[in-house]
């Protein structure tokens, strides 16, 4: 049974980590867009 | 000798970008056949990139390049001679071995052939023309910089090209040999070839070049028949 929960948690940890990297990339990009707009 | 003044090279708003760096920024120009063009400008002005685009080594990001009436540069590459700033030679082989190999790439099977009707006009003649001894057996690694430069020119001339693109042919060559090379170029020009010379030593070409082309920040800023003293420094 523990293995079941471990597997389900692991799945969502992986997905959320990936989504986290996406958000981080998006923030970096919007920073760059702001910089471009200033020019 | 060709007397037609039709354009050999036509560039239409050519851009070349390397990431965020723009090496060529909208070059539009026409160059006519049978002339010697000296391309001048500071480092980073886009001269080398221009030659690489003409040689088909770099694809322009935007714009079109037409050479000898076609935009498919690959189909006229056998009419092109290209001499780059690096020597484009194998250091471990001797001069003639190098030339013989590169000749094969152009379908010229044997430079020292036995066929009497086809005189040995390829490698050996080219080597003597640039002032090197064809019998030299030393590997290129042991050549002086000037000799390498001359051998590199001989390599560019192998296929008897109609269009010659030379990047800094006189750098590291002593002034006497440089003058000889200029003479050779002017002979080639008289034979109807179109020649582009990128150089920092503009004075060497004074009186020989038909036109001087100034480049700055990826654009052609000026073209003139004469090298004005103001620009020479």
């Amino acid at each position, binding site marked *: 049974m523990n293995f079941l929960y471990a*597997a*389900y948690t692991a799945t969502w940890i*992986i997905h959320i980590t990936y989504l986290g990297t*996406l958000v981080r990339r998006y923030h970096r*990009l919007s920073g*760059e867009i702001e910089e471009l707009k200033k020019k | 000798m060709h007397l037609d003044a039709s354009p050999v090279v036509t560039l239409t708003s050519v851009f070349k970008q390397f990431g*965020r760096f*723009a090496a060529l920024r909208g070059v539009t120009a026409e160059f006519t056949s049978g002339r010697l063009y000296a391309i001048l400008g500071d480092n*980073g002005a886009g001269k080398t990139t221009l030659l690489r685009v003409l040689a088909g080594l770099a694809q322009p990001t935007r714009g079109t390049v037409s050479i000898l009436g076609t935009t498919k540069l690959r189909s006229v590459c056998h009419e092109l001679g290209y001499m780059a700033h690096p020597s484009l030679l194998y250091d471990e082989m001797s001069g003639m071995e190098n030339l013989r190999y590169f000749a094969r790439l152009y379908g010229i099977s044997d430079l020292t052939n036995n066929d009497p009707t086809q005189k040995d006009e390829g490698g050996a003649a080219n080597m003597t023309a640039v002032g090197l001894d064809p019998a030299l057996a030393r590997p290129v690694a042991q050549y002086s910089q000037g000799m390498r430069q001359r051998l590199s020119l001989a390599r560019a001339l192998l296929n008897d090209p109609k269009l010659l693109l030379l990047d800094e042919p006189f750098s590291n060559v002593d002034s006497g040999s440089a003058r000889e090379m200029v003479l050779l170029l002017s002979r080639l020009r008289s034979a109807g070839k179109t020649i582009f010379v990128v150089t920092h030593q503009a004075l060497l070409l004074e009186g020989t070049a038909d036109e001087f082309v100034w480049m700055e*920040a990826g654009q052609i800023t000026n073209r003139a028949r004469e090298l004005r003293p103001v620009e020479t420094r």
Partner: protein
Amino acid sequence: MKRVFPILALLTAVLLSCALYEALVAAPTEQTMGNVQRIFYYHVPSAWTAFLLFFINFVCSIQYLVRPNPVADKLTNWTVIAIGIAACIAAFVIRPLPEGIEPSSVATTGLAIAGFYFLIRKCFSQPRTDALAVVTAEVGVVFCTVVLVTGPLWARPVWGIWWTWDVRLTSTLVLWLIYVSYLMLRRFSTSGQTPVLAAALAVFGALDVPLVYFSIWIFRTQHPQPVIGGGGSIDPRMLHVLLINWLAFLCFAALVCWSRYRLEILQREVEETQALEALLEPRSSR
């Protein structure tokens, strides 16, 4: 389009929680394996989704390489049509089919391949296929990672081992390695034509997959390994839960791909603007 996104996200979340409930509670407990078997409802849909994404990556890479060249483009189009037709004919001509393969599934697969190819061709311009290729490779690797993590967690209590060099496990691992190297190539490339290089690698990888599968299949038949699953038919209620989970994960993957795709496009636009900026800004000649 932007307003649709939160609605879809909400729907997907609802679907995912439904699927989770079904998987944990509603689905019948397997007799021999017990509750651990429920990992199946996450493991298998993730695998199917990953394979689908890699397949899209392959189609995009082919199109990216082929479309600038009209002759090759036409040739590929006809090849794809031929694959579709051949699959339909083969489904009804070849008798007997290998065990466990229905004629209808052969025909559907062939038609799906052709359909996918032309759908992508119609919906995406040639430069955009490259963006889609990056996206599917990346999200595919994420799903493949899920498969590779949940697999051992399932194997450990059931077989008593974490890993076995079984054909499906090993092929999935190799697939994962190939696409990780694909992403590495994209990151480390200094070429101005990274998309071309990456697309070439993707084609190599896709060509490799059947060979990997086939070689390991033979390898395995020579070396006895633990048998996977119970085999045979699956309880219809389990199948139902499985399909719901797959649907949920497909929607989730589509959403992730969509956001990642928008990010990629945005990034390319920013890069283009920066490049344009570099063009316009007067450069001091040193």
